[in-house]
């Protein structure tokens, strides 16, 4: 998938802005400012998704230890949402895509 492949290309968080600002890509990519501004991955409560399932998905997608994954799951359950990760847009998009693959209600939000 082209979109995914291009996102994977910039997955390295240490990549310099020049990596994003490649000639010829400017018109096809989002503005530099939008890419640089931090984004957050938010998971929203859904009474259908099982708590054990949500915990395992957090472990799998983010590599979080069980305790941390459970804390986020409980925050989703009790407060309605939890911020799972924040950083560059491309990586946040990939996380949201993975979470949607597990059918969790996840969104990107600009910080």
């Amino acid at each position, binding site marked *: 998938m082209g*979109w995914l492949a291009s996102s994977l290309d910039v997955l390295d968080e240490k990549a310099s802005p020049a990596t994003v600002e490649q000639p010829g890509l400017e018109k096809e990519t989002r503005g530099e400012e939008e890419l640089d501004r931090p984004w957050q991955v938010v998971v929203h409560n859904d009474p*259908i998704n099982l708590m054990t399932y949500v915990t395992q998905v957090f472990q799998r997608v983010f590599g979080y230890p069980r305790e941390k994954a459970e804390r986020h799951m409980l925050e989703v359950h009790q407060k309605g949402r939890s911020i799972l990760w924040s950083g560059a847009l491309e990586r946040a998009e990939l996380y949201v895509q993975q979470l949607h693959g597990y059918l969790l209600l996840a969104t*990107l939000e600009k910080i």
Partner: protein
Amino acid sequence: MEIYRRGNEVEISDLDPFLAELLRQIPASTNTEDSPPARERIYSAPADASHEEICTEWKIYVEPELRRLFQSATETVAGDLEQLNGEENSVSNCTLRIPTRHADAWLNALNQARLAIAARCNFTETELCDHDRSPVGSRRDLSLFQINFYGFLQEFILREVGEVMNGHGS
């Protein structure tokens, strides 16, 4: 009904015809074509509407990937459910064996089915917490029972085969 793990399989034995029929309905239950609320839930937006470009790109590039992923999971489950074919009119109990390597597909398809049914019926949180309601009252009661039954299967698979889910990249 009995459910247990036996080696590389999850075995659901002593399945009465009613529960067997509910299992047969998993693939059909994942279908969102007839239900905008179900479609909206399964293919929910990745950001609020103010991020128009992200939402547009998502529709073009990501949604088709998700459709393929969900379809693949449903097809795997449908294949396993072929074991129940020919038993539709039988009054005797039957057995379903699910290979543990299909655990991810089952978890995904069961989740699709539960979310789609819940969206179609627009259940309240109170209803969803009512685990004792009889399935024989109405179509709505049956749908709620279906959600809970599928949830029970998900819990069992997660508990018994959870390491499969944790052990592989997505």
